[in-house]
């Protein structure tokens, strides 16, 4: 029996978990569902000891654990976690990776013992797996790696396992292997081991879970017996009941400015006749769960696929990265240079850059987008995260590009900044720019004229106008892709 009460987790200004209460009984399979950013992974990291809770308490088998609950402690108490991104060392063999989570596998003959242990477990969970203990992980296919990691989590040496957390375990398994896993989950829960199953495939959750907990905005909003849920009620529980905020609805006056078609693209592998279209003056949203092909679609537009008229790509597209530290900010440069970099062609005279023109551009956008900085010559790293993101917007909007691609640019940005930027996006759109906007936040879809919901790299649903509701987006995000796996 494991119980969490009042668990909170804060990352900087972002409240990832705001008071989670949850009980996990011995020998049950608890399904955990929720949209992106609902806090599922954060909660599981706290349970596995890889993150420390900011507030709240955790009780495992009568041991009260507050702060200072770490991985070693979790291992001792028999809590194992299969993380979404794999935790195997690609340069080591299957047996060696097993040794990593079992400190007792050492001394003479450890290699043989580790090999036998993991092979026995693999045979039990995934009969016919085709993996051998001496295979190097890096040489295995992604689904075999996932099988090894899952089997590894169930191996037992000196301490019994009490709880195994499976975070999206079937994401790279084919349906036959996924069934093997679900069968095995049923089997071990019968032996008293608890399992937490996180999955975006609601069918899976409904099939194996005894109870289902639904998370939303860092809280558990519903937790009932699985029999009380069906697909529709689950999706409803994940959505918000109250429509908060008043986004400027798409009005008639914006439609008037919509002009020629700028983008017409079909994602590769799209089975039906849906395709991504965008006209001048439109804000087009890409929605769906994270990592379902939205960024890839943006990048392919950036590479010129589907841009009309073809060949109009030069200076025609600009990209606003979501991960600004990696893809956006030039950390050693001033605000001015960071803004000017996309418009250098216009500011050239001969071979040199006219710094007055760059300064002019930077000053104008600092004013317009409201970058809170004393001076555009200040280094960009002196700004807060939200203001750095504004600089990236200024860079894109200050360029001559007609098409602006946005890759979830508002991650980790405060509400005030967001609202300022939303206003500017609508203004720029009404002047004829086209925006393709991948976002994981529901409210942002209210600013879009049309929304494409992605699932498995293709468009699963096109929503327009008043059809753009949280419920419709959720339904399309969780659409069962039958037989396509």
């Amino acid at each position, binding site marked *: 029996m494991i119980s969490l009460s009042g668990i909170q987790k804060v990352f900087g200004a972002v409240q990832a978990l705001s008071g989670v209460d949850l009980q996990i009984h011995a020998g049950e399979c608890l399904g955990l569902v929720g949209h992106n950013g609902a806090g599922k992974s954060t909660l599981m990291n706290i349970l596995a000891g890889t993150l420390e809770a900011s507030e709240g308490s955790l009780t495992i088998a009568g041991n009260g654990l507050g702060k200072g609950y770490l991985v070693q402690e979790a291992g001792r108490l028999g809590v194992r*976690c299969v993380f979404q991104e794999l935790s195997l060392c690609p*340069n080591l063999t299957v047996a060696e990776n097993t040794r990593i989570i079992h400190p007792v596998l050492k001394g003479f003959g450890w290699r043989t013992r580790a090999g036998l242990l993991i092979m026995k477990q693999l045979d039990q969970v995934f009969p016919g797996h085709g993996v051998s203990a001496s295979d190097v992980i890096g*040489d295995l296919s992604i689904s075999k790696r996932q099988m090894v990691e899952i089997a590894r989590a169930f191996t037992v040496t000196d301490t019994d396992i009490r709880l195994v957390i499976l975070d999206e375990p079937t994401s790279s398994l084919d349906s036959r292997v996924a069934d093997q896993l679900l069968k095995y989950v049923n089997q071990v829960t019968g032996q008293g081991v608890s399992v937490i199953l996180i999955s975006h495939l609601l069918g899976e959750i409904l099939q194996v879970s005894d109870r289902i907990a639904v998370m939303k905005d860092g809280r558990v909003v519903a937790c009932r017996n699985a029999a009380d849920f069906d697909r529709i009620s689950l999706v409803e529980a994940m959505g918000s009941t109250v429509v908060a905020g008043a986004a400027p609805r798409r009005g008639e006056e914006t439609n008037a400015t919509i002009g020629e078609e700028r983008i017409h693209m079909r994602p590769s592998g799209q089975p039906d006749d849906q395709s991504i279209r965008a006209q001048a003056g439109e804000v087009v949203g890409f929605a769906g769960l994270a990592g379902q092909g939205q960024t890839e679609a943006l990048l392919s537009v950036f590479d010129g696929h589907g841009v009309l008229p073809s060949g109009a790509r030069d200076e025609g597209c600009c990209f606003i990265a979501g991960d600004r530290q990696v893809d956006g900010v030039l950390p050693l440069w001033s605000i001015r240079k960071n803004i000017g970099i996309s418009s250098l062609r216009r500011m050239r005279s001969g071979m040199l850059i006219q710094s007055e023109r760059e300064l002019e551009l930077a000053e104008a956008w600092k004013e317009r987008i409201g970058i809170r900085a004393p001076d555009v010559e200040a280094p960009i790293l002196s700004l807060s995260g939200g203001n750095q993101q504004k600089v990236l917007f200024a860079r894109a909007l200050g360029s001559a590009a007609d098409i602006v691609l946005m890759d979830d640019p508002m991650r980790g940005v405060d509400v005030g900044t967001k609202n300022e930027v939303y206003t500017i996006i609508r203004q720029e759109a009404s002047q004829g720019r086209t925006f393709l906007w991948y976002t994981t936040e529901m409210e942002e879809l209210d600013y879009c004229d049309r929304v494409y919901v992605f699932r498995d790299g293709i468009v699963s649903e096109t929503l327009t106008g008043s059809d753009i509701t949280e419920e419709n987006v959720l339904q399309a995000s969780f659409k069962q892709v039958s037989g396509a796996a």
Partner: protein
Amino acid sequence: MNGLRFFASARFWRGALPALSLTFVLVGVFWLQPRAMSYFGLNLLFNLAVPIALATIAQMFVIAVNDLDLSIGSFVSLVACIGATWLRDTPLLGIAALLGCVAVYAALGALIYIRQLPSIVVTLGMSFVWSGCAVLLLPTPGGSAPDWIRTLVSYKPSYVPMPLLAAVALGLVVHFGLMRTSWGVLMRGVGGNEKAITRAGWSVLKLKMVMYALTAVFGILAGLTLVGLATSADANIALRYTLLSIAGVILGGGEFVGGRISPVGAVLGAMTLTLTASFLSFLRISPDWQIGAQGAVLIIVLALRAIVNRLEARR
């Protein structure tokens, strides 16, 4: 059937490449100078390969955790200077100094991990510190190696020359320690996926400190062997070891990132590089071309490896 497939596999060829390149250069040397094919000849050919092989193994420990040590050459020089002065005159002070060096290396590992500093920058800085200490200790070339080291390195067993025995022993011992023991797995795991090691509850800090300390230990062995062979020391005696050791690790099948290393390959790589120099002198080509030739060997072997990898990817 299974065995046959293994011999056709890319992994086999990647592993065999260091041995093949050494054989190739060795055959070239024997062809030019058949008299080298003797106990005495082999001794001469491979004598200086031993300290280089030790330095290469030292470098390999750092590369195994995705770092790079640009100070190993000046560190080996400093050790040689300590060996030719303090270790002979005041052995206790000498031993204390060498132990201090190990502690400094472990501390560097901790600093690089905790502050997330690029190892290249830290070790490049340290290379000047080591060089400075060496110059202070031995301003002009000189000193002399302790007799016990000299006796040790000039030991002549019957039938098989000492350098070959030393190389085989070195390769096997490090292979066993790093590739076969349960602790070696953790150390290589740090290079493969640091996060996975942390999540399994191990301290990456400690593991990195151990790896850096091991680098120092093998660097010390390299410096002492070198001073034994050369009988006297000089503050710049081993500066070229830095690049030679990196080249040796890579030539031996190691990679800069990902914890993919091969101790046996690294020893073979170091021997290949040393032999290339002799090969050139047998060809009567001026030693000025040595570094260029070593570079050429490196390029050829890496090109072959790239071809093997590409063949594998196509399959």
